[in-house]
């Protein structure tokens, strides 16, 4: 099989021109030639990212001027970046009677984590071979904490699941594997809320 020449590959990818019918037919059928076209398009995209991410001289001047902020811990904006560690205040597994379970085996259970700004309630239910997690983030102050990004990280800090709350603070994840997680709630405004050790089993 005779592949497209590199000039033909560049013509298709960069000049957006059509080739002769035989070459077009080959391109439609040849995964290797299409991969080369895609590689070139990726490179062009990287050039575009480079161009759009070049900071202007005024931006650089602004950032270097922030040296005066170094080591000044208190400011109106610093609250955006502080993390509130949530404390587990209720685990329904510690009271099986609340589950209405006769055998003593707890399937679905609820967890409640509290910070000074918000509660995070999580319900865990087995579903097929994994778990369904439904949660709600409830503000305890005038500061709105929803909508928020909800991230589930494993013990190595690798992001495993991610979702967003709705405007009422509710979220859901399905297919969650058993394990230990760190759950990070990132509100649109205000401090990040972190549940440090959440075991799903």
């Amino acid at each position: 099989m005779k592949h497209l020449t590199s000039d033909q590959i560049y013509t298709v990818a960069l000049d957006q021109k059509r080739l002769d019918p035989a070459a077009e037919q080959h391109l439609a059928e040849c995964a290797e030639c299409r991969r080369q076209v895609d590689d070139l398009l990726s490179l062009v995209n990287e050039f575009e990212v480079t161009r759009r991410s070049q900071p202007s001289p005024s931006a650089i001047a602004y950032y270097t001027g922030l040296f005066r902020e170094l080591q000044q811990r208190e400011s109106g904006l610093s609250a955006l970046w502080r993390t509130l560690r949530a404390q587990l205040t209720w685990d329904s597994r510690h009271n099986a009677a609340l589950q209405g379970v006769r055998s003593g085996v707890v399937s679905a259970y609820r967890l409640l984590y509290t910070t000074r700004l918000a509660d995070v309630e999580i319900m865990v239910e087995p579903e097929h071979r994994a778990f369904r997690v439904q949660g709600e983030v409830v503000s305890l102050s005038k500061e709105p904490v929803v909508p928020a990004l909800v991230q589930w990280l494993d013990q190595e800090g690798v992001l495993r699941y991610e979702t967003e709350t709705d405007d009422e603070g509710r979220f859901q994840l399905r297919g969650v594997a058993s394990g230990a997680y760190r759950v990070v709630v990132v509100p649109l405004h205000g401090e990040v809320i972190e549940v440090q050790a959440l075991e799903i089993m």
Partner: protein
Amino acid sequence: MKELLVGRRYRNSTVTYLVQRCLHGDEEAWIEMVERYARLVHAIPARNGLPPTEVDDVGQEVFLALAQHLDEIEDPERLPAWLVTTARRATWRALQRRRQEEPVDLTEDEREESRPSSPLGKPIPTPEQLLAGWQTQETLQRAMERLNPRCRELLTLLFLDSSEPGYEEISKRLEMPKGSIGPTRNRCLQQLRAFMQDLEDKDGL
């Protein structure tokens, strides 16, 4: 002259040393840090289709946070990952704000046209993906530096110049026949890709 020299003293310093020097009140170290990582920070909102003004907003937010919390970063060698995560969250918030500010009386076609190229609602890449993207950007930059000056200038005009000069303009600037631009571009890109592959192989990517 001072402007030319500022920031160059720490050009080859490790991140840990840069952070230590910043925390000791060394302004040159801070300038080096800004110059080293500003593009990394900007690349994240840029990849997510935010316009230049909002890219700058994200940059301001991230560097302000860095200045205020530099002493709290436990492992300075992970500073790039910290910057990526922080910029990602700031980008997420900016995209949320754009979604909330979207006029309600647009038609579906108008709404689609006004979206940035990374549509609202599309998941933001993970920190790992963004760091991998940054690695690609660094490789591209290093490969561009290896090109001969003529190729570097041509590819810069074709792909990196924000004024987006056409072939007529490029032909004048480089004193090159218009008909040669395409074939020369292809040869230069071929060379660039070979350099990038070589760098990736050496970096074990």
